[in-house]
């Protein structure tokens, strides 16, 4: 049972006071590390972190509440599959943001994923990602744990990725030839080829596993190095299930376990550097409050964000709870998002990179109105 209770019941206005001391921009190598865990497909935030103190939860989705959630405070519990994460909450190194989302209400995976990675209000309106732009300002390197370079970190100057190949019997060209290939390309293509070496292309040098957990472990190993990347992006796909999503057990709960182990794995592999790290989850939207006809939920709006890492000093559940009665729902079906998740991302950037909040809002999110939430998470 968790004993610490830092439930914030403040109003929206109360949450978004600004005027905290400003962190200066530092010329020294940045110590902070950010890991973004992309939960693709729309995680059901009400199943992950159920507001068990809200009676309407049981009225709206009787069959989709875990039977034994771990109680966090009078209002919120957490799905029992989040074991590592729960002990991080207990150790004051994790926090939960509830009823939150990027400001996108369209319920399309593709637009939603683009908005949360691009960081703009309109989908497909920018070719770089918010994290990439911040990395460009902070002059820091990053690594995507996927075959492609996801939009979220594009725009950074120093990008690499990791997703081990399984192509056998391929004779590799010399390092000199790699440089020749590079010389035929321009811009970003030339930069990413520059990361290839004959050694890095060899198979069997590193673990060949490509599951999220192994990739998270590899991210942790790379990031704990002194000159290693300060940013990593790990993807956990397959949240897009519309039927039989599970309650105590089942598909969504299995994914919770995977997310939870990802947190655990990052902590164990980052070792000493965990204390300088913030890990945050992001998902394109939450799910409908009511269950649909096939024991699942459909595309919605508000969801939950999970944060962990040594940069957090005090655990809390940050929420401005909108309620779950029919009249409280967005378009009578979805959990309202009362916290703009961009403001949470901005706080993480401030904590890890030491960037000024105004710089982040103006140059990363290109929106001066983003409130500063730093004090609620890292204060």
């Amino acid at each position, binding site marked *: 049972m968790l004993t610490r209770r830092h439930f914030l019941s403040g109003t929206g206005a109360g949450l978004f006071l600004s005027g905290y001391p400003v962190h200066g921009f530092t010329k020294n190598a940045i110590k902070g590390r950010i890991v973004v865990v992309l939960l*693709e497909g729309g995680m059901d935030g009400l199943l992950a972190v159920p507001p068990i103190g809200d009676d309407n939860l049981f009225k709206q989705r009787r069959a989709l509440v875990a039977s034994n959630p771990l109680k966090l405070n009078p209002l919120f519990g957490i799905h029992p599959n989040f074991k590592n994460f729960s002990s991080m909450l207990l150790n004051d190194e994790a926090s939960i943001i509830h009823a939150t989302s990027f400001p996108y209400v*369209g*319920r*399309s*995976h*593709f*637009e939603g994923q683009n908005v949360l990675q691009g960081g703009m209000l309109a989908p497909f309106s920018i*070719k770089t990602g918010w994290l990439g732009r911040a990395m460009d300002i902070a002059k820091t390197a990053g690594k*995507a744990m*996927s*075959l*492609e*370079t996801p*939009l979220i970190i*594009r725009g950074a100057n120093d*990008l*690499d*990725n*990791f*997703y081990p*190949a*399984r*192509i*056998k*019997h*391929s*004779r*590799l*060209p*010399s390092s*000199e*030839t*790699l440089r*020749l*290939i590079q*010389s*035929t*390309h*321009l811009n*970003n*293509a030339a930069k*990413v*080829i520059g*990361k*290839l070496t004959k050694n*890095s*292309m060899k198979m069997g040098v590193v673990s060949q596993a490509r599951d999220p957990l192994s990739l998270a472990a590899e991210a942790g190993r790379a990031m704990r190095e002194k000159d290693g990347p300060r940013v990593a992006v790990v993807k956990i796909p397959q949240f*897009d299930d*519309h*039927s039989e999503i599970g309650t105590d057990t089942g598909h969504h709960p299995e994914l919770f376990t995977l997310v939870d182990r990802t947190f655990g794995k990052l902590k164990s592999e980052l070792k000493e550097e965990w204390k300088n790290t913030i890990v945050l989850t992001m998902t394109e939207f939450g799910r409908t409050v009511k*269950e*649909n*006809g*096939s*024991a*699942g939920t*459909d*595309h919605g709006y508000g969801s939950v964000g999970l944060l962990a890492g040594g940069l957090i000093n005090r655990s809390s559940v940050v929420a401005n709870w909108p309620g779950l009665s029919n009249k409280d729902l967005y*378009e009578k*079906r979805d959990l309202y998002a009362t916290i703009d998740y961009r403001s949470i991302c901005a706080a993480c950037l401030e904590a890890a990179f030491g960037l000024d909040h105004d710089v982040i809002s103006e140059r990363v999110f290109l929106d001066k109105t983003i409130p500063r939430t730093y004090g609620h998470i890292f204060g």
Partner: protein
Amino acid sequence: MSDNKHKWARKVGFGFGPNELLPTDVESWNNSQLTSNFKSVGVAKRYSDVEIWPQEYNFSFEDRLRRAGEYNEGKKEIENSKKLTSVEKKKRVRTLRDQTDVALFDVYKFWNSAIYGDDMVKQRLTHFWTNHFTVGGGGRRNYIIGDFIYRVIYGNLNASFDELLYKVTTHVGMLDYLDNAESVGERSESARWARRNGKTQGLNDNLARELLELHSVSPERMYTEDDIRNSAKILAGWGAHTDSVIRKFYRERRRGNPAIGSLGKFIYEPYFKDRAEPGRKIVLDNKFRSGKKSLRQLTDMLANDDFTARHLSKKLAIHFIGESVNQSEIDFIYNVWKDSKGNLEEIHKEVLNVTARSKERKFLWPSTWMFQAIRFSGSSFLPGFEDGNASFYKAVPSKLNYEPKKILEELGNSFWESRQPDGYSERKDDWVSTEHFDRRIKVASRIYSFQPDRQGEEIAELLDFSDNTKIAIDKASNMRDKFIVALCSPDFMEV
């Protein structure tokens, strides 16, 4: 663009290999590419001649269900056996899978058609539309993806778009992949029965949403949640899981019921009246009555919507011309779409016309790049459809070599993988990364290992590579590396 015939064939097809004759007149070649009937071809052994694709590997939809059913039943028997050890069981299931497999033959047909087919433009169009109407792989769906690609997509390339849209929407693969098999009208007989028994059944709007968002009008049409919900109501009753279709088909066949009759109706148009939502529905201000026929009315309405013409003209232009295509080029295609009322043959013809006039460069999908690299260079990289896989997975020799299937997956561009319903990206940025280049270089090196007729320098000459790239090829120290530099240069990755 069409001045250099080699480049033109890469722009709209897979390029002309070393032993192919160049057409004397590009315009009539274009025409015959779109309108002729072609026979599928393939190679039986890696270095043997091209021959007609064996009829026994052109699986009908029923063949596919039968083989999947045989696998299901056989697997059950093996797993229930009390005599076999678990290792033996595993081995036997694997052998059975190889004996009943269909997907691997489909993958081979896909490769052979791209590398040796006379219908290269139709193949490229098939790849485009298969991607536009993504049906993700996985489980028993892999048995029927080939049916989707060849019968539904390839078979309707010259039909009208409304015909294609209806056939795609009602295909078991699509109905299963986008969860419509789960969707039940809330006021349907089935849902009322379920309620009486303490269960709930209701709508699942996944397919309805993607039908509007991805397959037809796009979000620019500004439809509402009610439009999606009402589309889902029209779709309710359609669909069954691939698995249950296989089971039903197999059961009926075993009972000795050879008549395709009602069973045929079921497998080709899986519709359950008792799950359908009764009553009128309104989508985008149009009224629809209850009943099976309302789906065709819905897909026809969407297919003929102005926003569909806009959305798809643009997507076709971006796919063939390049992502910086200008609006006037898109408009040519759009105008033909409108004038021809969505006649795909006319539309495709205009796509070729506009592409021929354009100077834009297109960054190719990795799969397109690879097929072109093999075809253009004349490499025998593709194993024959009779070459076993013993060399690839030594432990379990089977009928086919797995490498072609694996390579598509490694390139992140397989049509048999589970993936997001918006399909593979048309944007260069989505395909440029350190790991993507790692794959390209490794695949190029593999292709070189199988005796290409055209070497790096010749490729560069024939395709008018930039001087900068020619210098790099020149500097590479051996023939293999020259080949790899040529294939991994922007001059070959784009066209």
